[in-house]
């Protein structure tokens, strides 16, 4: 039976993909390389994961304000995740998605969900996202 999670859509859009879940605050700057497309923070619980084509969940942001820049470059190069799920989505993250839409017409949905719903997320699950609705297949 599939589970439905209703979140708050920060940046809307529809997509689907396999989930990668981190349980630690994450910074795209120093956390993800737009040269390799993978997680480079050795302290991260999703170290070395490749994000292209995936849906990436991490509870909240941290670190540098260059996260927006790293995210935009990843989107431009086509190596960004398909969507981002957080408990608290930072403004630094949202701006990367907003500017990508304006500059390149690219859509990166960002959804925030409750702490309880976040516990339902597991790496490897397949998700279908439609604005604020997440279907766990």
């Amino acid at each position, binding site marked *: 039976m599939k589970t439905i999670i209703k979140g708050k859509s*920060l*940046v809307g859009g529809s997509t689907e993909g396999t989930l990668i879940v981190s349980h630690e*605050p994450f910074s795209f*700057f*120093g*956390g993800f*390389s*737009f040269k390799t497309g993978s997680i*480079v*923070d*050795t302290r991260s619980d999703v170290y070395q994961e490749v994000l292209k084509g995936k849906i990436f969940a991490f509870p*909240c*942001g*941290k*670190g*540098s*304000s*260059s*996260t*927006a*820049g*790293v995210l*935009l*470059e990843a*989107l*431009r190069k086509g190596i960004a995740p398909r969507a981002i799920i957080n408990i*608290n989505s*930072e*403004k*630094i*993250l*949202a*701006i*990367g998605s*907003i*500017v990508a839409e*304006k*500059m390149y017409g690219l859509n990166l949905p960002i959804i925030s969900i409750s702490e309880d719903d976040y516990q339902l997320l597991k790496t490897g699950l397949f998700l279908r996202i439609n604005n604020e609705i997440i279907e766990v297949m």
Partner: protein
Amino acid sequence: MKLTQDEQEILSGKRGEAAKIALEIIIELGELYGAAELIPVSKAHIDGCLYGAVGEAGLEFAEKMRQMGGRVAVPTTLNANSRDINCWVNHRMNAEFAEKNARMEKAYLGMGAIPTWTCAPYQGVCAPRFGEQVAWAESNAIVYVNSVIGARTERYGDYTDLCCALTGRAPKFGLHIKKNRLAQIIINCEGLPLKSSTDDFAVLGYLVGKLAKDKIPAITGIPQWVTSDQLKAFSAAIASSGAVAMFHMIGITPEAPDLNTISDDPSNIETIEITKEMYLDSRKSLSSATPESADAILIGCPHASAAELMEIADLLNGRFIPEEMEFWIYTNREVYSLLESTLIIDNLIKSGVRIIRDTCFLNTDLSGWNMKTVMTNSAKYAHYMKALTGREVVFANLGECINTALQSKGQPRI
């Protein structure tokens, strides 16, 4: 969103295409986070000019905004970029990478920004005043300006910074509003024997950032003698391990004379006491290698102040650093020119120190260098070193950095 006549005019395109797009982006961001209106800001600090951090997309964004006639509406300072503008050749930088930087510099200067090229703008002549509404990016600068100066900015990222600069507006949300600046967690460090040394405050900041995550911490037990450079080290560290945009230090920072001023009910806020053990664990977590393996010393993240350069010159006292050890200090033009009139810069160079302006070890091209393990007194450097440069790191105090350098092998450079 409710817009003023002035803002409607920007949105209609009467002030140019760049300002129009910039305002559209700010409105969209504001609406996402529930802002009902915009507020004027009187300064901006741009982080998006770091080519090494943001790559081609960041360059395209800056050049596009400039081509569309973008012009900053308020005094706008620039963060470190990705090369020492005068000495990049000497610094063995790839010419193509340097050329991209040059384009980035041209784009931002062309829009009227001030060539400060520093990640510590709060220590320079363009620092805002208490209560001033500003739009700042660069995580360490955001924390410092909110907390130590008491100016008001949200935790802005690349591109929001320029959009605010081009329009002189920011969404009325978050830390621009006084009631959102109250403490959300209390961190008690009264039991810690803090020394008057930047590394002690870097370690503390790194730990507080981890504990506070994205909350505003109120820190108690900070001694009155804490210096601007120590608060700088603290700010950079807290914004590396956490998503902290401001802190209060009771009796130190201007909005926090006591706990009751920064909280409606201090007894109801989560309180964490920092033990000596937690503090030592935090220090340990910043190193990935042993001191003996260090083949370079790095100081200046955030950019070293005049006081810090003078302290290093004092400690070196004319002694030579052997040629098998690199000793680099990153600083800005303002500090450098201040000290150029003295013998301090000369003496440091004669000792074998490389003084680098404008840029940052984490965001530049290092292909001409093969150091494997760097020793630093900066928690921010230590935090990002492995992921961004592939190098190992040893966190140490300034005295250890200098002793390690002087005791290394090889002949004096000169």
